[in-house]
């Protein structure tokens, strides 16, 4: 258990570090995928199978592929031209923001009542069933708003694409 955790943590951190430090955009993407795999592994290790599977399905199956298409539409994928990182010497600025964000998130997690409510052992089947039920009862309004938002984004994308088609 512990050994698995340390290996996974190392893989995850390595992926994250490589994703921001490599020059070639495609290599960055692959490092990011490694990071996603590590996070999914952590979920499986914590017996949150559902979250692990969703992590793979959405982040590797969809988000990574989306980034891939974006990369294919950009120039200078290999990172050989141009003047490198636009932040320049101000990397410590980004590091500060990251540290502050991490501190904030840690504090928020420690304060929240989530830890107390989740401490009771529930089977994974229970989590999937409970979550599904909550989504269509208590949280139905946020769910619907999200659905409408996504649909709007989809229609917007189609409209943008059609516009280009008409011009040509």
């Amino acid at each position, binding site marked *: 258990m512990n050994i698995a955790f340390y290996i996974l943590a190392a893989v995850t951190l390595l992926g994250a570090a490589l994703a921001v430090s490599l020059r070639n955009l495609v290599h960055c993407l*692959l490092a990011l995928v490694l990071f996603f795999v590590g996070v999914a592994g952590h979920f499986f290790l914590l017996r949150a199978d559902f979250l692990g*599977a969703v992590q*793979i399905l959405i982040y590797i199956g969809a988000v990574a*592929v989306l980034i891939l298409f974006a990369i294919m539409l950009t120039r200078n994928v290999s990172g050989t031209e141009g003047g490198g990182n636009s932040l320049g010497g101000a990397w410590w600025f980004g590091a500060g923001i990251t540290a502050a964000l991490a501190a904030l998130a840690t504090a928020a997690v420690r304060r929240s009542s989530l830890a107390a409510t989740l401490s009771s052992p529930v*089977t994974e*089947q229970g989590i999937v069933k409970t979550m599904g039920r909550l989504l269509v009862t208590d949280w139905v309004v946020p769910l619907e708003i999200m659905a409408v938002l996504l649909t709007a984004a989809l229609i917007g994308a189609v409209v943008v694409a059609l516009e280009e088609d008409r011009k040509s």
Partner: protein
Amino acid sequence: MDAIFQLLQNSGAPMPEWLALALAILLPIVIVMGLFLTVFAFLTWVERKALGRIQNRRGPNRVGPVGLFQPVADGLKLLIKEDIVPGAADRVVHFLAPVLVVVPAFLVLTVVPVAKGFVPVDLNIGVLFALAVSTASVLAVFMAGWASRNKFSLLGAMRGVAQVVSYEVPMVLAAVVVLMAAGTLSSIGIVEAQRGWCGWFVCKPWGLVAFVIFQTCAMAEVARTPFDLPEAESEIVAGYHTEYSGFKFALFQMGEYVAAITMGGVTVTLFLGGYLGPGCDLPRIGWLVSAGWFFAKLGLVVVINIWARGTWPRVRVDQLLAFAWKVLLPLSLINIPAMALWYFLPNRLIGWIASAALLAVALVGLTRLNAGRAFEKRSYRFIS
């Protein structure tokens, strides 16, 4: 896995706990890998024989009786062949791609129940895991195409990515009705929910439609012949694995075949009752009979795959994508209310008829709407 551990602990054999644990972990892996690699090797032989029959020739018949040892010869030949990496290729990614293409195919096997009481890992979300992992192979395809620094490779890879992303959507939606009927995501739970006379989900109207959609999408996802655009040899040499030779090429072939087998296994689990069949509950030999049923059904699905490959021409890219978005996606969406009708109407017979009627209307409507449009002549924007 836990069951094997229990068995080893209780068998009375003098064995330390760590050894029992290691055995319990390794045994299912060895059984599953060995079994499916053997099936894979002989599937290549079956496929070449069947295709030969369809094309009015004999197929492999030189090595061993009726060419039965052809896979061994092929494997040896590919192993000792020179491995060539293009000079401009991205060496690391080029090397990693064939390794990674095999991994998702085998990972899906961890949740497919091969026999009664034998599933390597009984995840509570088994089906979701299988669907999620099987889509990860798309990254390996892209890595191969991109790292080769070859235009044909990259074209093939981008085709593969677009295809898998499009067909994943109707595939998951087709699986949803099964999850609704079974009320669980566990693969064993789904198989057990199909007990009884005509209990297999394929015997219901919504199940039949979902089965056809799922099987089509599974074929598209593993890029087999009506949908083998990523490696269309008449257009882009060999697609994403143009620049691969020797055993790396063999790994791509293996990934494709093993993925075809494992997706067939998922189809059997979801729609054809998995290991269920007469005699699967017999006290002593039940596991053997049920394994026999599972592999018989798997063989049927695989033969349907080969048959489709031998008889259908390859589709065009626009036809492929139009078919996914304009036919399969709406149909799989309508399939969900059809399943709800069947489930909630008080009388099973009325529900059966209502759901079948809804699906028939949807099918006719979709064909009418798409008539002459889904497969219209392609206009090329970037050619003057």
